[in-house]
């Protein structure tokens, strides 16, 4: 017997085991995606196995529409939906700290609380200015802060060091939580019967990275996967690319700006043609288009494909990405205006809330999907 890291099986895990048993005796979907290829390497399915397979699933829908055993057949096979529910459970099981796991079940509440906290933190950070400004009365200071003289000088609203401290703390927290989550998840899907950590590790990781970055398994058979029965459109893939690469570009923009500041001593604001601004603008546009596109696709999507617990994670995360980008672009465009400080505080509130919720929302799907893709590549190359 294999060691089973999660002793109590949830309904979704039990249903996944049933479905994989039926699928493994059928195998018609073998050529669709790695889920079924990985399935065929197994005869029985532990909770770790199904968590791995669930996170390999890209939730396209080919296998549901092709399934002779789909509901209302008594076998009731709906792999995309069952796996989408199981994925949320795997996010919860791997969450760090563990008491934060319920956040996945109340994504809007989580987002709202984080946003309130972000707004408060930003406002307080801005307020430090007023406190230091001992010569002025509170109201006068507020008036000055919120109607600055159009210099686009962000650090006059929140001092640079304070901003670095605030975002550094939140960023470190998010990274630690994500890394711990990744490690917990990777351990839960580890499979001692298959050479996991030996063999061509690097090759597996490189190939898996390509699979993830190209969303290979959303168009693996020469054309895009279905997004409804017999309709194959590339939009889900392209909107995801806009979102993902938009996010990366914005991240790159901030990183370049940090290097400018720390290494070269070049202080923001930067020119519209500067590298941080160009990267941020292009990325920001991606983060406007992508999330809106994904939300529209979600609205049209067949409810048979996604469990409500998984589907409910999408909108809050996409909304946060969109609003973070929107406020960022507005700040850029209107940074010479007197109300810049309000925009800055608003934008920073969104950024803080976005980062603090990264480990407790839809964002983690990318982390765990990547872990599953790496495992798949290792299995198939070893």
């Amino acid at each position, binding site marked *: 017997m294999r060691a089973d890291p999660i002793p109590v099986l949830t309904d979704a895990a039990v249903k996944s085991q049933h479905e994989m048993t*039926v699928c493994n*005796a059928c195998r018609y979907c073998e050529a*669709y995606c790695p889920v079924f290829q990985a399935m065929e390497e197994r005869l029985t399915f532990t909770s770790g196995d199904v968590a791995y397979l669930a996170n390999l699933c890209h939730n396209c829908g080919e296998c549901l*529409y092709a399934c002779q055993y789909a509901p*209302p057949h008594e076998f009731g096979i709906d792999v995309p939906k069952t796996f989408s529910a199981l994925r949320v459970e795997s996010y919860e099981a791997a969450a760090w700290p563990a008491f934060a796991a319920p956040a996945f079940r109340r994504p809007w509440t989580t987002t709202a609380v984080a946003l309130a906290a972000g707004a408060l933190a930003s406002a307080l950070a801005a307020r430090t200015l007023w406190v230091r400004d001992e010569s002025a009365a509170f109201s006068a200071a507020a008036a000055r802060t919120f109607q600055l003289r159009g210099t686009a000088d962000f650090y006059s609203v929140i001092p640079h060091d304070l901003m670095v401290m605030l975002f550094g703390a939140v960023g470190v927290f998010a990274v630690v939580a994500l890394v711990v989550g990744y490690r917990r998840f990777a351990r839960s899907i580890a499979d001692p019967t298959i050479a996991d950590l030996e063999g061509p590790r690097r090759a597996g990781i490189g190939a898996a990275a390509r699979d993830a970055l190209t969303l290979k398994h959303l168009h693996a058979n020469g054309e895009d996967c279905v997004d409804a029965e*017999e309709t194959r459109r590339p939009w889900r893939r392209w909107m995801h690319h806009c979102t993902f690469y938009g996010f990366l570009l914005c991240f790159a923009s901030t990183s370049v700006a940090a290097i400018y500041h720390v290494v070269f001593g070049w202080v923001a604001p930067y020119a519209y043609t500067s590298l941080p601004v160009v990267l941020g603008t292009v990325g920001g546009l991606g983060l406007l288009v992508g999330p809106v596109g994904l939300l529209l696709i979600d609205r049209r999507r067949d409810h048979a494909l996604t469990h409500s617990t998984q589907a409910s994670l999408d909108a809050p995360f996409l909304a946060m990405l969109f609003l973070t980008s929107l406020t960022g672009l507005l700040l850029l465009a209107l940074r010479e205006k007197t109300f810049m400080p309000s925009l800055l505080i608003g934008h920073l509130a969104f950024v803080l809330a976005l980062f603090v919720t990264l480990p407790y929302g839809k964002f983690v799907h990318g982390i765990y999907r990547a872990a599953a893709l790496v495992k798949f590549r290792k299995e198939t190359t070893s």
Partner: protein
Amino acid sequence: MAPPEVYEVAVLGGGNAALCAALAASERGARVIVLERAPRVFRGGNSRHTRNLRCMHTAPTDILTESYSEDEFMTDLLRVTGGMTNETLARMVVRASADAPARMRRFGVRLQPSLRGTLHLSRTNAFFLGGGKALMNSYYAAAERRGVDVVYDADVVGLQIHDGRFESATVRIDGREQQVRARSVVLAAGGFESNLEWLKEIWGEAADNFLIRGTPYNTGTVLKLMLDAGAEPVGDPAQCHAVAIDARAPKFDGGIVTRLDCVSLGIVVNRHGDRFYDEGEDFWPKRYAIWGRLVAQQPDQIAYSIIDAKAVGRFMPSVFPPIAAASIRELAALIDVPAGTLAATVERFNGAVRPGTFDHEALDDCRTEGLVPNKTHWAQRLDTPPFWAYPLRPGITFTYLGVKVDERARVALRGGPAANIFAAGEIMAGNILGKGYVAGVGMTIGTVFGEIAGREAWRGASSDTSASQAEHRAG
């Protein structure tokens, strides 16, 4: 002009042959209606459970290895049917199969090389990406794009045929009977394997223990209506294709996952605990189709495949868990077989196993001596617990009785070929497959004759239309 409710071609049925016929007629411009008895979610007849079609080819293709010549395909057909085939029609099917993949792809069907566990078919059979339901989805989508009217839950309960001419079909839709008129009709409504009463007429009480592997909608209504209307029958009316499947399978629609591939790895006993046939006679894919009948002949139509731990992992997993026990006697208790008899059967078997080198990929030299019946290959002692049992029952795949057709797919009536009645698929497969089966040939027959029937139905309907238009102009 025809009144709008008159179709040029009515297709009775909704599986592979039906849709191939509908598409063949509609791509030539015919106004077509498809009457599918099943609801939309279960559309596609038994085709939804299929996965490939057999096709000849002279050189390797993107999905087929090596070559599979016309003569080889014909030889395979003659071998499995024991000559019970119309060679002219059989050769037509074989030749036309060469073009089937290209034609299917035109309608959006996606094909793939053979599945991992089916490499023995990689040379002869083109696989449908995602299986038969995906194939049917592609065909239905193509039909809808072309403006074919598809009516689901449409139960054909009557055919109006006068002087060899089809005039209309009586169809029950939502409890109301309607007349569907068409200039030509294609019968593609399958066999009668899910008509339990009909099976009972042939097999008696034993039929109560049969499981139907496919759709519950193939009750043979259209077949019976045609035979009653004077169509010439073809194929043995008392034969069906039956394989041994897991006894725990649902009554209908269990499909591929209920099959058991472990028979040749162990022994098979009946409810008395006795063996009754050579489990290692030949490779399982060549023998699985005789085991339905073998089990049907046992008391209560049940048998048990028994293997030990050495066999685990050597066969495709079944959808149902094995019944497992640490000893043969415990296993006997779990499957309600007399423990003493089963233990004695296993002991005799173990004692009769000759030394050999086990090789499941070849007809190896592991056999028994002095048993009745002997196991002639892959005989290994059942001595390594846990012991596993899988219960077996006959699983009916299809029936052979059909209507006789000619090269134009016209149904033969007692007075000669029908003017405007064509048939395709299981309802006429008995012309080519009088008995036996070879993987994927049912889909080949349906695809080729579907196209012929659709084309001929259109041709009949269009000449009819021009004739009536000429009459109209003359009048």
